[in-house]
């Protein structure tokens, strides 16, 4: 047996296995990785909510982007680290980015409803972003439930929203990934979370994590994937970040939790046009700005059919719908979200040289 064959048959696999188990040992013993955000400054803080400003590395567009993420998860999935950050990708492409971090509500925030989140926090944050940027308008981009909030705000606000981007957004809550009888039970009032929410006042993050886990109770694939590819350092790094984020769910205000289950899941008010937010009727027909909606083909949290109705409901003449290969968070986790948005945004944002000339 030659030395080459000896190396490839015995030494390399041994090295790989040593690396694999070494990495696994590190994951088990070392603390969770620290997420280093893209350079940013705090523009506004209210209660637990923070508005971050990520300046463009080389500003190309006059219209800034306002990113809203889901209320149920932490926002740093959109800025998970250099190389795979959505925010970083956008700033590199010449956009100023404003990122709204909802924060985790405490017991003192149990009374916060979706009205408060959308009007008092989101709308005010957009106002602040507009004031800070000195731009005449802004692009709203929402992911998951953040997209729902962005769509609701766009339909009721007078603020100058130039474009609306919705990614993996649930609009129709009558369908979902949970068993049909559960949905039916929710819609008929046989299953109610009201008392649960009242008792807890603010739903602890552990319960929300449990809720997500219940959607796919046997959830071994991430660990299996890790063990299988633990010798790949880059993969392990990404896996650790993803693992941290998955387990780091946010708590949720009881009032908003109740409102979400009753108004959205039970009565499907958003789709029907019966939803009232801050005394204003939410009618998606009021969305007239250019709209870009996309879904993920392997999304096991928000189905494509849940996003599609928005295309029919809005009044926008310029509207685009696309489906991309990936899971619910993979586009955010890999930073592909920025690459997907860029061509559409570039065509719909005001370039700086246009202003100068």
């Amino acid at each position: 047996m030659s030395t080459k064959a000896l190396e490839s048959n015995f030494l390399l696999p041994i090295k790989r296995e040593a690396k694999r188990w070494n990495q696994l040992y590190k994951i088990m013993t070392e603390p969770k990785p620290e997420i280093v955000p893209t350079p940013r400054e705090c523009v506004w803080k209210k209660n637990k909510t923070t508005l971050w400003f990520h300046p463009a590395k080389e500003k190309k567009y006059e219209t800034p982007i306002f990113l809203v993420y889901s209320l149920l998860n932490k926002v740093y999935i959109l800025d998970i680290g250099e190389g795979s950050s959505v925010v970083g990708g956008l700033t590199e492409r010449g956009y100023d980015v404003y990122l709204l971090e909802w924060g985790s509500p405490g017991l003192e925030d149990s009374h916060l409803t979706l009205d408060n989140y959308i009007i008092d926090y989101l709308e005010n944050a957009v106002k602040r972003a507009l004031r800070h940027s000195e731009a005449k308008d802004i692009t709203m981009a929402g992911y998951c439930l953040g997209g729902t909030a962005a769509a609701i705000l766009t339909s009721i606000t007078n603020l100058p929203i130039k474009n609306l981007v919705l990614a993996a957004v649930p609009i129709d809550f009558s369908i979902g990934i949970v068993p049909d009888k559960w949905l039916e039970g929710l819609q008929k009032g046989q299953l109610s979370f009201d008392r649960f929410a009242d008792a807890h006042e603010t739903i602890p993050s552990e319960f929300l994590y449990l809720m997500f886990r219940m959607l796919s109770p046997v959830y071994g694939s991430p660990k299996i994937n890790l063990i299988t590819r633990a010798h790949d350092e880059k993969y392990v790094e990404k896996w650790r970040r993803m693992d941290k984020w998955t387990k780091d769910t946010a708590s949720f205000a009881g009032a908003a939790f109740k409102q979400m289950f009753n108004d959205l899941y039970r009565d499907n008010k958003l789709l029907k046009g019966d939803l009232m937010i801050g005394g204003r009727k939410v009618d998606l027909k009021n969305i007239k700005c250019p709209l870009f909606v996309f879904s993920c083909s392997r999304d096991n949290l928000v189905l494509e059919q849940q996003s599609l109705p928005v295309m029919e409901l809005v009044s926008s003449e310029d509207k685009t719908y696309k489906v991309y290969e990936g899971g619910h968070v993979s586009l955010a986790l890999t930073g592909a979200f920025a690459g997907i948005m860029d061509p559409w945004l570039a065509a719909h944002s005001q370039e700086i040289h246009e202003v100068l000339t």
Partner: protein
Amino acid sequence: MATGKTYDPFAGYKLVSEMWEKQLNGLLYKLTDNKEFVQTANIGLDAYSRYLERLRKNQELIAAFMNIPTKKDVANVAKLSIQVEEKMDILEEQIWNLQEGLSSLNKGNLEMFQETVKIVTQMKTEFQKMAREVSETKNMKADLQELRQGLVDMKIIQVNIQELRKEIDGIKSIKVDIKQLNDSKESNHFQSDIQELKLGVAEISNMKTDLAAMKSLIEKDKQKKKKEPEKEQDKELVLTGVSKSK
């Protein structure tokens, strides 16, 4: 070995695990997808919530007896700070509005000052112009006074002219009267003139006849003198004839 690939036990492990995961999840999905499970879950949720409520209530009660602050008390304090934060936000927005108002006012003021400066410079030039005009006006005033004097003179002249005109009118009326008078006198004069003329014509015709008689006499004398050779004698004759006729 010929392909250069080594056996990877993890690939198989992954495949089998994924298959198991999918199937187990499918099984659980089906097991829970029924009315009974939903009802049981709801009952469970209610029971859990009820016990939690009771626990919280008792916790609050005990804490109150023991005079220990609970998480709720801390939350209430936090609420106060949130309220303050909200008020601060409102104040900040009001300050912004004020700032915007002030900046727009300042802008307005700046524009006004610029306008004022413009007006002042304009006024300065206008004053200079006016000063020049005043001096010109003074000259004009003198001229005007002269003119006034002239006008006074003219008025006097006018008065004189008016008087003259009156006089002329008087003369005219006299003239008319005279004319009227003349008209009646002239016809008389004409007649007398005609008569005088007639008399004159008669005298002229008499004179004509006298001349014709004198001519005939002269002719006779000429014929007589033709007979006399000396011219001196004819002249004397003619002259004496003329002196005699006179």
